[in-house]
């Protein structure tokens, strides 16, 4: 009989119950969408922040950084310390290999251009290099992905264009070079003809450099298989107290702390792991990028968290509000059941069962609708799918249950406290 009554209530007053289910579904879908987006927003924004380029600089141990910065380093000469090109693939084999988005090696040397007196910097790099890893996998990596703010007139060169070059805009102005011109680069006894395929504007000191494929620069300088530095772009977790201590001195950590640190994608942990696989290398986080990423990530996550809380509170209030209204609406029925001799407990169970049943239907429908909303947000903002986090399910379940119970129990109690005579006779 109990179930017959529940069934009657649910199916013979579809309109009412559907409206409650619909409202619960809206609340659930809102919570699901917001929670999923919130939990994934860190990864997504992190990915977006990769547009700022490298956040780790790998240099040979003991090498001097004092070289560029507005070209004031001229005359200090070049360090004779190098990293090995053959070890580059190892970067994609570290513990956090999956978080390494891109990397590009650089080999820098000085040349005189078109037989002028002063020397300029010629940099060899990977533009988009196909690399076979020791693990058997392969990937394309290089500078094109990491410098997407470069404004190139003409075109990017490829790693196979060994007779081509890209020239920085300042240099191009000084030497009156245009895309399509032929230039000569002379280093010591060696000299080379290069086709200028593109002029780029980067808004930094790179504008007074010439870029060529890595092997070209190495051959010109007579240092095959050697590189001056590597720029790495990695997805990282914002720094905290532990990672700061670790960055100062990894040996100061306890074994447990060390493991936590090593197994978290802190920029310092990734640097440490790169140092492990590259001989005589020192990896340094580029603080300008690493710090700012952390700050922006934290702000975005906090912002989303607060918006999520607002929408959770909003939907919770909305749902419990409607549930309360729907219970109060049933005052006569409750009074009648009492007059027919029903005790409080069975009446409460009856109404709770109906509401929870409605809640489950609404909640399940809302959960899937919410996944849809999350994907719409993910696709239209980030152009990629939002990761569906299973932990959202229990959160939403608990939320819906709590909210419907919170909405119904006080009102049921209030209804039960009324004497049937009051409700039935309006007295």
């Amino acid at each position, binding site marked *: 009989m109990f179930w017959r009554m529940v069934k009657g209530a649910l199916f013979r007053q579809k309109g009412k119950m559907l409206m409650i289910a619909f409202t619960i579904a809206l609340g659930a879908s809102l919570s699901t969408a917001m929670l999923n987006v919130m939990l994934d927003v860190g990864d997504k924004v992190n990915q977006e922040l990769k547009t700022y380029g490298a956040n780790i600089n790998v240099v040979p141990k003991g090498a001097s950084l004092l070289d560029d910065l507005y070209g004031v380093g001229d005359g200090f000469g070049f360090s004779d310390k190098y990293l090995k090109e053959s070890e580059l693939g190892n970067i994609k084999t570290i513990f956090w290999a999956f978080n390494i988005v891109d990397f590009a090696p650089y080999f820098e040397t000085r040349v005189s251009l078109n037989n002028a007196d002063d020397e300029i910097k010629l940099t060899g790099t990977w533009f988009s290099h196909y690399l076979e890893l020791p693990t058997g996998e392969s990937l394309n990596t290089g500078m094109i992905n990491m410098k997407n703010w470069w404004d190139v007139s003409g075109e990017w060169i490829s790693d196979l264009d060994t007779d081509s070059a890209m020239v920085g805009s300042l240099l191009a102005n000084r030497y009156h070079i245009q895309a399509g011109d032929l230039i000569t680069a002379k280093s010591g006894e060696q000299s080379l003809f290069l086709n200028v395929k593109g002029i780029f504007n980067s*808004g930094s000191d790179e504008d007074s450099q010439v870029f060529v494929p890595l092997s070209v620069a190495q051959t010109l300088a007579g240092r095959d298989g050697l590189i001056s530095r590597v720029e790495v772009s990695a997805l990282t977790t914002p720094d905290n107290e532990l990672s700061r201590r670790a960055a100062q001195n990894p040996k100061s950590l306890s074994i447990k702390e060390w493991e936590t640190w090593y197994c978290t994608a802190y920029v310092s942990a990734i640097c440490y792991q790169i140092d492990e696989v590259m001989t005589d290398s020192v990896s340094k986080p580029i*603080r300008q*990028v690493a710090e700012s990423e952390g700050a922006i990530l934290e702000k975005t996550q*906090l912002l989303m968290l607060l918006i999520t809380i*607002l*929408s959770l509170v*909003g939907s919770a209030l909305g749902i419990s509000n409607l549930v309360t209204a729907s219970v*109060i609406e049933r005052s006569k029925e409750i009074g009648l059941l009492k007059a027919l001799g029903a005790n409080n407990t069975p009446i409460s169970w009856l109404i709770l069962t109906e509401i929870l049943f409605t809640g489950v239907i609404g909640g399940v429908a809302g959960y899937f609708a919410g996944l849809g909303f999350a994907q719409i947000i993910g696709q*239209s*903002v980030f152009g990629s799918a939002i990761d569906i986090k299973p932990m959202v399910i229990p959160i939403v379940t608990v939320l819906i249950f709590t909210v419907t119970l919170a909405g119904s129990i006080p009102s049921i109690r209030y209804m039960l406290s009324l004497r049937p005579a009051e409700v039935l006779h309006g007295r």
Partner: protein
Amino acid sequence: MFVALLAVAIGATVLSGLVTVYYDIPRQMGQEFRSYGANLILVSSGDQPTLSIDATERAKQYFPAENVVGVAPYRYKAAKINEQPFMMAGTDLAEAKKASPYWFVNGKWPESDGEALIGQQVADTIHLLPGGAFTLTGANIDGKSFTRDFSVSGIIQTGGTEEAFIFMSLADFDSLVGAGAFDVVECSISATETELNNIVTQITDNVPGVAPRLVKRVTQSEGTVLAKLQALVYLVTVVVLLLTMICVATTMMAVVAERRQEIGLKKALGAGNKSIINEFLGEGIFLGGLGGLLGVALGFVFAQIVSVNVFHRSITLQPILIPATLIMSFVITGLACLVPVRSATDVDPAIVLRGE
């Protein structure tokens, strides 16, 4: 009716709160992005390799004063410590701190003359710790040599070239090297790329001898990321608003549907459909107004909480939001009332009165 009022207030709170946050995001986030440091640098465009102080001041007039985060001029000169070559840099330290917030200083920023910040690499090479002392030797602009003792107030880490510099105040630098013009001026301005481009054009056209250049890595990337973030908050706002508004409408409908009997009674007493609808709409608009006002206030409180917690700044109330929220509340309560009232007025009063 309390239930309905609560529902409207929730909806209005979400509306005004989220829209305020949405409008404020670019401004607030733009400030955050300044932690990437300078987005505009001034260098010399003339024959002189340096920028005169006068030209710099003239260029600075083209910056929007309230959006300037920091403008740090730099002078560079090669110098030696223990016969090892280093680069000394003089700057306005207070401005440098604002323009390059990502500098990590182990120790303190210099507070008095004779104190210097040294890069991590310098510190490693000559084994200095904060509080240590070193002697700097070099030649001034007239070619005369100088020697001066400095104490290390702090060691800076940036992961970039700054780690190979010795930073000191401009006063110290000038006293050693002699007064002179700047090599470069780094500016951090809270503005969009278009605005920055305008500033660049204006300075190029009006201030001879100064070549402003955008730090593309910073400006362009900021534009990209900020656009995404704004799109995110925009979509989230739209979704939350949509769902909340429907939620409010269903609650309103439930509340009005409960009063079918009253409608039947009024009809039985001879009230026309029109007057009943007007009556309910009147109530709805009153509720909408009251709930809307409540929501404007609560929403502002919410936006303020978000802003203070996330960005550590307070926000200003957008006056346009008050009428906008109120109108939305009116529309939603009105629509939500109209649907059940219409269906109730269609019903025969006898049935409504008799029914349960």
